[in-house]
């Protein structure tokens, strides 16, 4: 069934739902009707963000970020301006210019698609998987290099992490989640195997 926005249920859930079903875990679906029409993503945007999310947080013993719908969350978050993503960039470089909205803010997803295509000398999504990882790793390394200026990738990557670790899978299977700890232990032994809590709200805010 297709709704008035042109999106159907299969589009919304996408391939990620199959992974979720395979793991027997719930999927955090995005409600696209809340997204303004001009920011509603197309299939190519969603496929790219799903892939990029999965490259950042891949499937290991637990599903990856793309598997659980982090890509869709990023697109929703960008449309609404989470993590100050609707604030106009501090410095306008030539690569940003084609992707600026009238209000001066950046269309991050469009920029990312163009940037990855440019770096690969062709369509990023058509490249072999190892090549995609290589291209994204290079972008990531540049964006986080010491002394690097503002880079839209930092915002996108941050939202991918939010999109993953605030899902039930990321928050309670990859990490631990305890709504009611019931006590406070001020000093416990930690080992390299100790798993962090996504429900450590102070750490989430200030960590």
């Amino acid at each position, binding site marked *: 069934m297709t709704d008035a926005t042109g999106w159907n249920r299969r589009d919304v859930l996408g391939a990620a739902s199959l992974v979720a079903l395979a793991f027997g875990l719930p999927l*955090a679906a995005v409600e696209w009707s809340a997204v303004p029409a001009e920011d509603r993503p197309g299939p190519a945007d969603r496929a790219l963000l799903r892939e990029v999310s999965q490259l950042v947080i891949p499937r*290991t013993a637990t599903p990856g970020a793309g598997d659980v719908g982090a890509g869709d969350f990023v697109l929703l*978050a960008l449309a609404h301006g989470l993590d100050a993503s609707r604030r106009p960039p501090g410095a306008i470089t030539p690569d940003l210019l084609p992707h600026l909205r009238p209000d001066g803010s950046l269309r991050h997803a469009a920029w990312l698609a163009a940037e990855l295509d440019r770096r690969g000398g062709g369509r990023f999504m058509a490249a072999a998987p190892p090549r995609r990882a290589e291209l994204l790793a290079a972008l990531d390394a540049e964006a986080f290099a010491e002394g690097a200026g503002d880079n839209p990738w930092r915002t996108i990557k941050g939202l991918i992490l939010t999109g993953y670790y605030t899902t039930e899978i990321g928050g309670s299977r990859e990490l631990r989640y305890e709504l*009611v700890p019931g006590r406070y232990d001020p000093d416990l032994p930690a080992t390299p*195997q100790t798993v*962090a809590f996504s429900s450590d709200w102070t750490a989430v805010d200030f960590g």
Partner: protein
Amino acid sequence: MDFDAIVVGSGITGGWAAKELTEAGLKVLMIERGREIRHQQDYATETKAPWELPFRGQGDAALYRREYPVQMLNRHFTEFTQGHFVNDAQNPYSTGADTDFTWFRSYQLGGRSLTWGRQSYRWSDYDFEANQRDGHGTDWPIRYADLAPWYDKVEDFIGVSGQAEGLAQLPDGRFQPGMALNVVERHTREAIRAKWPERCLTIGRTANLTQAKPDEGRGACQNRSICARGCSYGAYFSTQSSTLPAAMKTGRLTVITDAVVEALDYDPATRRVSGVRWIETKTRQRQVARSRIVFLNAGAFNSVHILLNSVSAAMPNGLANSSGVLGTHIMDHANTLSAMALMPGFEGHTTFGNRPTGAIIARYRNLETMDGVGHTRGFSFQGGALQSTWTAGKREAGIGADYKDKLRHPGMWKMVLVGFADCVPRATNRLTLDRRRTDANGLPLLKIDFAFGAEEHAALAQAKADAAEMLTAAGGTVIMGFDRPGAGGTAIHEMGGARMGHDPASSVLNRWSQAHDVANLFVTDGAQMSSSACQNPSLTYMALTARACAAAVSMLREGRI
């Protein structure tokens, strides 16, 4: 409608006034401008997980920019708690041209008692004597001894957990067992004490129960640290968990919500408040009630707003304003992140549970020795040690399985110290009515003029240097620190505007929080404060309220008002 007492506001002090006055046998009307929120029934997001909310707890940033541009700056404002904060677009205020003031508000039954930070500290005579000592503001007409028994009463009832330290500048209270410092904080406490014996790092004194109060239906804290969503355990003090049930139990309390008080009527013949007028926000109907006494507990700025708007032929500049100082000398603590340090050496340690308080370092400057650089008052620190988690990954390079695995484990220990500096009372920091703009109820907007001065900047500069010095001494590596205060209001300790003082010519209230000009009017929220100290003020507001209630009841019984 006739009552013995009308209490305007249902927050931390309104709840206390209602409790004390009803328990003294008075028939009380409590008027709250916001909606009703029922304890345990209306904490809609209390048990939600991030994945159960549309924006995963982060909230709809577009909505926030549009309708909550001020409240969204509050760190406790999230998708979980947004229902406990005002809609800025619907509740505007004005600021002066050079004023940057973030006014964080909660208009609902319980007010900010639902969202407060719960830090509960006694003030000392260093604070009550501060104005007399350096000449800023006007001398308090009370001293610590006047308030000590009322602190006892309040702490016993609300439940404050903390550690006694024997500090003259931060008097010990009647504490429930304190929460524990974590391993890094314990180390830092000892390292600081070894080098500076006068500097005391201790656990935050917080109105979270470490021991249940079953007779009052309150359970012990579960170490969730999601208090601002509302707590069905009743483990932190709020109007809903504590004072409102006590007042309701008397059978003498009537509560009206969704009712904005616009003004108090004044009878020049009796020199008394003769009525309280309000607007029902759902119907825009105007109502009025009378009572023998009135307690203003609308929150510091809103209580002043009501007084400024209560003009009459006899009091054309606002009720209880013969002095002309109504609205002046407002304050808020100047605060900023003084230092953040990485704390190596604790990689083999972690914690479990979410402690709903941090650690503090009590004031140590300008006590017996005036050792402040460029300032005459005090500053203190709040903060604590924590380990980073997945959000640290937002600042780090990396993708792929190794990166994912790194974020799976607790990260580096950090220690944070946030400085809170005493704010000097100044006549130029003031509230007035904006005669050009009105709100949805047709009431003039409140206008805030506010700026920190040289004293606050100097105090935060010294706080930054001291914080770095202490964390370094504890083995930390300081990675950042600031000495510029945030916008006014950042500390959410706005106070003053109807200050207490000896002289009716230079103050609004007397030593009983009673208006010099109007004998049956009491203002017992933050508006009454004559100085700001550098510790959190809510416990003092509560103690002053309980004290004022006892005084008012005595005056009524003796026929003096």
